[in-house]
């Protein structure tokens, strides 16, 4: 477990005035820093804004974008929306899984570089199938391009 700097979290809470109704924005900011929601961070937030840990946990687990598990340096979001589906995004997903050694159960690659997430639609349907790496959209993917992408990212890291 990495040691968390609670000061960072306190700053985020401060920015949102310790407002319970801003809990989603608070967790988004925390996740922006750590790329996931560490348990200690959630416990700290619950105590500071006067929300029960179970309520907070309930909100955190409800939304697909929040992750309670650590993520790789590169989060490969594979779009499995309708438009991507009919243009064979399943094959792209499979190629990415093979190239990174990840599976549905394995969420972070051994080298700590990759996490694959399946998302329902990135709204870039005109360019389907698409894969989003961190905030960059990669358009009209094929299994070959997917393998190249992983290789390129490995080199970059």
């Amino acid at each position, binding site marked *: 477990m990495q040691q968390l700097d609670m000061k960072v979290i306190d700053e985020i809470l401060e920015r949102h005035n310790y407002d319970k109704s801003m809990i989603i924005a608070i967790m988004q900011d925390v996740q922006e820093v750590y790329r996931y929601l560490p348990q200690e961070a959630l416990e700290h937030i619950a105590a500071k804004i006067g929300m029960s840990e179970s309520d907070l946990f309930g909100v955190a687990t*409800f939304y697909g974008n929040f992750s309670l598990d650590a993520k790789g340096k590169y989060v490969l979001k594979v779009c499995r929306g309708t438009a991507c589906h009919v243009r064979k995004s399943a094959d792209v997903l499979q190629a990415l899984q093979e190239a990174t050694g990840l599976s549905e159960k394995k969420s972070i690659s051994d080298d700590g570089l990759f996490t694959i997430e399946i998302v329902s639609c990135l709204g870039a*349907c005109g360019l389907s199938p698409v894969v989003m790496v961190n905030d960059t959209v990669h358009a009209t993917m094929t299994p070959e391009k997917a393998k190249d992408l992983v290789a390129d990212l490995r080199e970059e890291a």
Partner: protein
Amino acid sequence: MRQRLASLSEFRALQQACMAAREAEKRKILVCCGTGCVAGGNLNVYQALKDRMDALGVACEVALNDNHGGDAIGLKKSGCHGFCEKGPLVRIEPEGWLYTKVSVDDVDEIIQKTILGGEFIDRLGYQGKDGVCKRQEDIPFYKLQTRRVLEHCGHIDAESVEEYLSIGGYEALTKALFELSGDEVIKEVSDSGLRGRGGAGFPTGKKWAQVAAHTEEPVKYIVCNGDEGDPGAFMDRSCMEGDPHKVIEGMIIAGVATGSTEGVIYVRAEYPMAVKRLKIAMEQAAELGILGDDILGSGKSFHLRISKGAGAFVCGEGSAMTASIEGHRGMPRTKPPRSVDKGLFEKPTCLNNVETFANVPDIIKKGAEWFRSVGTEGSSGTKAFALTGNVNNTGLIEVPMGTTMREVVFDIGGGIKNDKEFKAVQIGGPSGGCLTKDHLDLPLDFDSLKSVGAIIGSGGLVVMDESSCMVNIAQFFMNFICEESCGKCTPCREGTTRMNDILTRITQGNGRMDDIGQLKKLARMIQKSSLCGLGKTAPNPVLSTLQNFEDEYVEHIRDKRCRCGVCKDLAQFVITDKCIGCTKCARNCPVGAITGTVRQKHTIDTSKCIKCGACKANCPVGAIKEG
């Protein structure tokens, strides 16, 4: 920092200055910076254009008020031009030329030939059936559209309030502030016949009137639904990215008309660029005194903030969305009370979709009559659609309500990719249905679609060719709903899971003949007893595919066959007459399922075949088919 505008006359002065500046900017390069073209590398094209022009000493204006004088060339990052298939796109004004598939390597030629020489580069133009189309408006994809909501999307710098003012932006707001009463604004919207563009088609004016009627409440909310969660839809994203001020203007007008001073835009987290552009637009509007207290000295106020979604499809449902904004799990609640009476933080709330708000400024500016001049009797105005899937021209389009599917798919969309056969269009996302060849001449409007078991939804149109398996599509949507069901009510949580189990079983070759009856029974139960709209409409994709493609279900169940070769477990490899008898497949088959003599057509024993695909991969003439 912009000067705060304290009165209508100060607004007019700035408006005049912006219009004059736009008038003076004759030569303009509009680089599409929608999500699609940015992914294609258009930000690099923009930077390269800027660098080269600077190096050549060609004066260029990035912002309207750069004031280089009349000869400068305007270089703008615009919103989505819509023709994503041909991106990255660059538009050249005043000619209105459109360059497609532009890359950094084309930049020098564009500057030398087009910008300095005034010459069109054929190579970068759109290749139509009868040669190159120079002007954007002449390309069939655009020619057949009626762009109202998207009118300026792609034609102005989306990050500049001055550009928005220069095309008459916020003019409608001044009318709502200084000329019309709240009731008159609502009457205009009611008379226009505008119906909610988010899917259900509720009359917007009626909703506004219900919120306005709560005069006893000091705090009321205007909420904009930018949680465009339907897979296959991106109209709202393009609208927020390409013309964010228009959405904001629509919301302020709604606020002024209904007496609400607080607004929230709920945007999906998957749309970072929309969030960024909206934030910029809100800051600029606040600087000018268009947002905040005492708007343009009118004494009226409107405060706006963005609430970012966190990835839950159900939050597109009104009461789930307000729960999410309040910081709870985004689950719908029973109605009544409806959100117009008790919505966000228990206050009367006017909740409309992005496109609905974006329609408002023009209705106030040009009048209800103008708005009704296109569309049908029951569905006036236009509708934006995201045209995707196996169609030649994917992209963002806007057509009058009542345009037929045929016009959209074949005339604007340019027909099916790779000359394949049209099979179906999925409309309305997970709540919608699949329409077939028989529906091609059906007008696209709220009521016609409802009559055939589909809905307009938010406007995603996914075109499917003959290689799309309809059982697989139905399973795909049911799987989506299963994962996105919030779990609050049993019919949706358990019912969709059961339907998904059955559909999965069918696609794996383990279906039973009574499964079809089971599916229909479950579907009716879910429709009747689910709590929210998401659950009530969840069975639609299954019901509409059953209605139109029941034979495919039967084939999957009885013959264990998927004619499209999509369901991998049912895949059968067949050797066609193309076979030259080279024996390569037989030699590569790991289980010896292929037999035949040299130079004669071979055959596969399907009972031995393990569907590994080695034969297909090794065939030198492509004689082996899956299906």
